[in-house]
């Protein structure tokens, strides 16, 4: 699934490590998410969206 995680993260000026810490996941998972290699659960999508101060609809391209 395509997403805007990388763009929004760079816009906020935070690292993958920091985003992972805020979302409560591993940095490697952020890498997979940014590359569109892993489809997150609704909870994880919500956590990442919250950490990036946005909504799921804006973060993920359905």
């Amino acid at each position: 699934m395509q997403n805007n995680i990388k763009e929004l993260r760079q816009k906020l000026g935070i690292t993958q490590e920091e985003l992972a810490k805020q979302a409560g996941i591993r940095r490697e998972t952020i890498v997979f998410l940014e590359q569109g290699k892993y489809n997150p659960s609704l909870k994880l999508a919500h956590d990442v969206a919250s950490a990036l101060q946005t909504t799921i609809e804006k973060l993920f391209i359905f």
Partner: protein
Amino acid sequence: MTLKKYNKYRMAVVMLLAFGVSLSVSSGNYLMPLVAMILSWLILYNLRQQVDGVIADECDYALAGKAARYTITIVSVFLALAFFVLMQFADSNHEFYNFAMITSYFVCGIMLLNSAIFYYLKLKMKTEKHSFKSWIKTFGIYFIIAGIFAAIFAAGSLRLISGEDSWLCTNGQWVKHGQPAAPQPTEICPLENYAK
């Protein structure tokens, strides 16, 4: 403690455990691996508590589930093939028959356990947590699983432990051992002793 440091400690503990187990096997002490395993588990549990970051997240669990599925499939197919190959040699050497039986029981057991856990988790997801009905359903499945396993292992153990029912070639004569289903072999029984 950082995740990197934890992984280094974990590797060291696993290596020490492997060393301890191999040492105990070579020395014939089978209590030592049990103690080593419990100790390692306690050390790892303690180390895990001190890690600051996330050790595993949902991505890891999803991959672990996928890996487990592949492992079960590969092991089952491999052992099922091994069963057929071993059965081909069962006539010439009865040890192959025992190995074949062990592999078949193992495959059945692993597949049954996998299905049982899958349906248990599905049931757990479906039912409400605190209702009496769900309690019965949850524990009922435990009893069914335990019953199936007890039956399989009892049958397997009896088959393997009680000794095979076969015709034994002793001093040039066929001697009945147990209650063999097959009739007495028509072949000539040589002077060397072996089981048919």
